């Protein structure tokens, strides 16, 4: 079983996040692994945990990231959880990619891994990246690779070569399945990511991160980067702070004060 988990290097949502011009400021001091990708890594590791020792021996989980050279912290975190290999695709030509450029680069990374000789059975992603929150790259990677997409999974099971999921969308509860190879995205409700153990933390420090360029992936001339994007960023502006909060401490009249506020502002 060969699994690729796509991971993203994003600004920590607990830090102050900013734009630099029209692009997300990727200040390395607040850069981290996209939290939702931990669910994807966990899902991959659980699939491997479920294999027989023989099957497990021939298996690997590869974390694949399109990131600047400063983005290794995300892959190190993936190593700490127990991922076998980490690949970072880094190229100035990829900066400013839109959803399609990102998906094309990730799909090219998967194909490059397959060119090593063994097929990639499963690509697993998180449900979204917490900086952009688009939630569409998983489906686009599947389209690029020509593989079925099982997205936003709440539960995952693998039986032989068939992957089955259940999912909760805004509209319905659904169950569906597809034969491997396939693309899977997992919701944040799918599992609880494991805590790294000491041994893995130590091992993660010295693990090699493989760095590939756009040329390594055959992406020259592809619609990637700002030049290939079909949208053009025009502006990014910080919103003014909210006016001072009107704070009431309840001494028996708090609810009435709340109602009065809503009535005064014509919200009732």
């Amino acid at each position, binding site marked *: 079983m060969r699994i690729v988990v796509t991971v993203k290097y994003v600004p920590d*949502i607990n830090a102050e*996040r*900013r734009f630099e*011009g029209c692009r997300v400021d990727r200040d390395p001091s607040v850069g981290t692994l996209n939290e*939702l990708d931990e669910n994807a890594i966990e899902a991959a590791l659980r699939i491997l945990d479920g294999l027989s020792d023989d099957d497990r021996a021939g298996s690997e989980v590869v974390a694949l990231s399109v990131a600047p050279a400063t983005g290794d912290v995300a892959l190190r975190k993936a190593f700490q959880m127990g991922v076998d290999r980490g690949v970072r695709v880094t190229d100035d030509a990829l900066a400013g990619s*839109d*959803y*399609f450029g990102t998906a094309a680069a990730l799909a090219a990374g998967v194909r490059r891994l397959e060119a090593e000789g063994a097929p990639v059975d499963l690509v697993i992603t998180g449900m*979204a990246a*917490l*900086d952009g*929150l*688009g939630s*569409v790259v998983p*489906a*686009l990677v599947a*389209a690029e690779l020509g*593989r*079925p*997409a099982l*997205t936003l999974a709440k539960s995952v099971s693998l039986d032989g070569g068939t992957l089955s999921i259940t999912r909760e*969308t*805004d*509209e*319905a509860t*659904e*169950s*569906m*399945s*597809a034969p491997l190879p396939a693309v899977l995205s997992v*919701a*944040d409700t799918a599992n609880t990511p494991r805590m790294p153990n000491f041994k893995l933390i130590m091992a993660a420090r010295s693990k090699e991160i493989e760095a590939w360029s756009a040329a390594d992936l055959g992406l020259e001339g592809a619609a990637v980067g700002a030049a290939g994007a*079909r*949208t*053009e*960023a*025009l*502006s*990014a*502006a*910080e*919103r003014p702070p*909210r*006016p001072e909060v*009107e*704070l*009431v*401490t*309840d001494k*028996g*009249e*708090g*609810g*009435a004060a*709340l*109602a009065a*506020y*809503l009535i005064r502002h014509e*919200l*009732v």
Partner: protein
Amino acid sequence: MTGPTQTTPTQTESAPVPAANRTVLVLLDPATEVRSSVLELFTLARSLGRVEAVTLEAPTVEVLAQLGAYGVETVRQAELPQEALDAAGGPDARHLPAVVGAALAAAVRRTDADVVLAPATFAAKEAAALAAHALGAGLVIDAASVGTDDDGRLVAGKRVFAGAWDTRCAVTAEVAVLTVRSNAVVPEPATAAVPTEVEGFAVSLDGAAPLPTVSGRTPKARTEGRPTLEEAAVVVAGGRGTGGDFGPVEELADALGAAVGASRDAVFEGWFDRYVGQTGVTVAPRLYVGAGISGAPHHRGGMQAAQVIVAVNSDPEAPIFEICDFAVVGDLADVLPQAAAAIRAHRDGRAG
């Protein structure tokens, strides 16, 4: 900070499309009801050009009347390849994002449309992305505003980083595909109703990635008399501070005609089924009331675009107080029922 880019009209490669000549397709799935989020899309679409709806099934008579009132002259109903659909699990498979995406792309090719608008549900986002992928179109996910620049290019505004930043981008491809947040505009019927015709169009799934097989689909039940979280103008949400008792939250919600939501913690505890948050439902209502919710970044990412934010929390240090307009430090079990009673009394007084 970069200001808005002003492009000079003389530098354009293709002539701008006047609004009158622009065709805008709106995704209507399911076609058995028109949610307020979709009425908003029709309202927005009319400001951009001529409006058509795209469905995966026959619209009901009631839906057709509503579409007519909103100025939709044509419904394009996808005719899906039966064999492929059967292989993917039958009629339920028509809601698969890959199928809806293929239908949207085929509808654009059929009508030579310039713009596609879809609601901001997870399934519609994927469908929009797949349609844009097939068409080579530009894609904007979760626009909070949509307009045009001097060159006739579509320009979308987004609120990002938990509502702390506003961004704008222009679509540079010929076709623009956008998903639009609920409450981006106020739904308004057209000045005059029009007759609505349904026209079928063939959709091929050849050449697309293989479809998964749908083995079960249960549509979500909606609570009678309460709006859904996505489309509500008022949302009341409860968190860990409820201790599992959502009674006071529901009482205030019903007094306000609001949708009920929860924090992710409360859902993980099993107290409620749907949470407001950046990975749950993202809401942008006129009024948001958070009760017993501390306001972790995850939650703020899902509600900070609300116009007015009210918080009730027993902890005076709760982070949600930093981003709200009005706050009560107190026990929600006391505050919410008292507020609900005062609101009902106000309503009754006004009615009488």
